[in-house]
């Protein structure tokens, strides 16, 4: 404990003296920073178990079955069914950001593999809309602009053919705890060239972000992009508060404003269907969530439930081209024909990435 900083030392001293004091006085000594210190040590413990996103090699689903070997037969049955449809799983850390982190990695990975320029163009337009939404809601530019710029950079860098392009391994590295050592140079020089709304003096501002990647700080690219998604989600919920209000009331009994402040914008707050709907709508990205839980239907047969979050085009702007054509081909068939861009596995309290065969 000697090497901790002064504030903690203070808290320690107070803690010792409180042993003589009454119970009531103990509350005095639970200082905010002592509580937060404990919280971050819990996170650090979690970090040792699993990185932000899982290993380079995609894990086969059989490893999931092994996990539940002595568990519910319903789960084992469901995993068997999943194995028919999905090739692999990629785990994410259970730090409350797993939905956003899974979304980030899965989306960037899809772009990296498909090199779909049109999709990048499309989502960039939607990101621009989100930025305007936040401005119209009264957010100060300096609170969110870095996070937006950073996401756009990640998009640019997964497209090959420019010198900032990155490989699949680099994407994993960036999404994980360590940062890429030569990242900062191009970051400073290139950010201003395509993020047109950024003023010149803001470029130097970016040095902070670079430092965040390069240092051992837990706030690296991955965290900054998660925060970007939190901004986008919160903006969408607030913009369409009438639509989201009943769902939020059902979940938490909070107002839309309270919900965004307490359950969307702080890092580490877990995501629910409200978050997923809002993010999917705002960015126009269809998401499939496959549920691995112990529910079963009465008839006795086990099937794996899934829910497709299909973006609501009027608010989210354009849909991915593939999805739009699917709708057109399906005629009036509507949402069922839209192919999800991203598939996540939900186990109560946690999201991981699934890879279809």
């Amino acid at each position, binding site marked *: 404990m000697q090497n901790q900083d002064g504030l903690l030392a203070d808290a320690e001293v107070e803690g010792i003296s409180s042993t003589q004091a009454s119970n009531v006085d103990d*509350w005095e000594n639970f200082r*905010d920073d002592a509580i937060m210190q404990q919280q971050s040590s819990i996170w650090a413990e979690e970090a040792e178990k699993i990185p932000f996103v899982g290993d380079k090699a995609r894990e086969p689903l059989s490893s999931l079955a092994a996990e539940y070997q002595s568990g519910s037969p319903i789960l084992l049955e469901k995993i068997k069914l999943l194995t028919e449809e999905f090739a692999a799983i990629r785990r994410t850390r259970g730090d409350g950001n797993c939905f956003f982190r899974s979304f980030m990695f899965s989306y960037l990975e899809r772009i990296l593999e498909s090199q779909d320029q049109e999709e990048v163009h499309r989502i960039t337009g939607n990101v621009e809309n989100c930025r305007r939404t936040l401005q119209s809601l009264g957010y100060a530019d300096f609170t969110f602009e870095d996070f937006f710029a950073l996401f756009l950079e990640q998009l640019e860098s997964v497209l090959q053919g420019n010198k900032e392009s990155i490989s699949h391994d680099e994407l994993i590295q960036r999404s994980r705890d360590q940062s890429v050592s030569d990242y900062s140079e191009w970051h400073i020089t290139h950010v201003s060239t395509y993020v047109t709304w950024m003023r010149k003096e803001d470029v*130097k501002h970016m040095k*902070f972000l670079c430092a965040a990647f390069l240092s051992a700080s837990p706030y690296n690219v991955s965290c900054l992009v998660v925060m970007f998604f939190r901004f986008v989600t919160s903006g969408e919920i607030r913009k369409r508060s009438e639509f989201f209000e009943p769902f939020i009331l059902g979940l938490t009994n909070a107002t839309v404003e309270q919900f965004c402040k307490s359950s969307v914008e702080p*890092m580490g707050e877990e995501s629910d269907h409200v978050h997923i709907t809002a993010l999917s709508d705002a960015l126009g990205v269809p998401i499939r969530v496959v549920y691995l839980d112990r529910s079963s239907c009465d008839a006795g047969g086990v099937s794996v439930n899934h829910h497709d979050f299909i973006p609501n085009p009027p608010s989210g702007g354009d849909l991915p081209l593939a999805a739009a054509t699917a709708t057109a081909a399906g005629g009036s068939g509507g949402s069922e024909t839209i192919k999800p861009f991203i598939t996540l596995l939900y186990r109560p309290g946690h999201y991981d990435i699934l890879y279809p065969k």
Partner: protein
Amino acid sequence: MVDFARVQKELQECNKDIDVSGISIKLKGDSNSLTHLTGTIPGPLATPYEGGNFNIDIVLPDGYPFEPPRMQFATKVWHPNISSQSGAICLDILKDQWSPALTLKTALLSVQALLSAPEPDDPQDAVVAQQYLRDYQTFAATARYWTETFARTSTLGIEDKVKKLVEMGFPEALVRSTLESVGGDENMALEKLCSG
């Protein structure tokens, strides 16, 4: 490393509408560090804190704006959620509910709102909280007395204080620098002038 460019923008933004909000943020004392600041909030009207000006000590941790700013009252205050001894504040947004979407100004606004709406069931100062719940009249009187005693001094205009101290026979330049160094507290300035 603290995001200094952002902190600078925050200070500009906050101090731009100081006339409307009454909330200001300055560098602390004579330090030149952007990581150690002093915020000032006026006590909300129709509360025992009305008429007081409360200084809040702000320290920005390395991870700001990912980590919350550390805030505690530098002005003594009698409130269930603020330690009457250390000035520590019990407020969710300064802990796990912090978000980079918040700013120093919105955090200070939340602290100001806390003055209007104490939450005695989630206390920082158990003695004050018990008094608040069991004997509100005494609580309100004490809080008002503390406001008068500790938070009033700074409402006197700086020029008035300078004038008063100069009339006591201290040179004006020294009075100004001393007042500055103690954050405008007239009594502390006098003490310092006498001892120096």
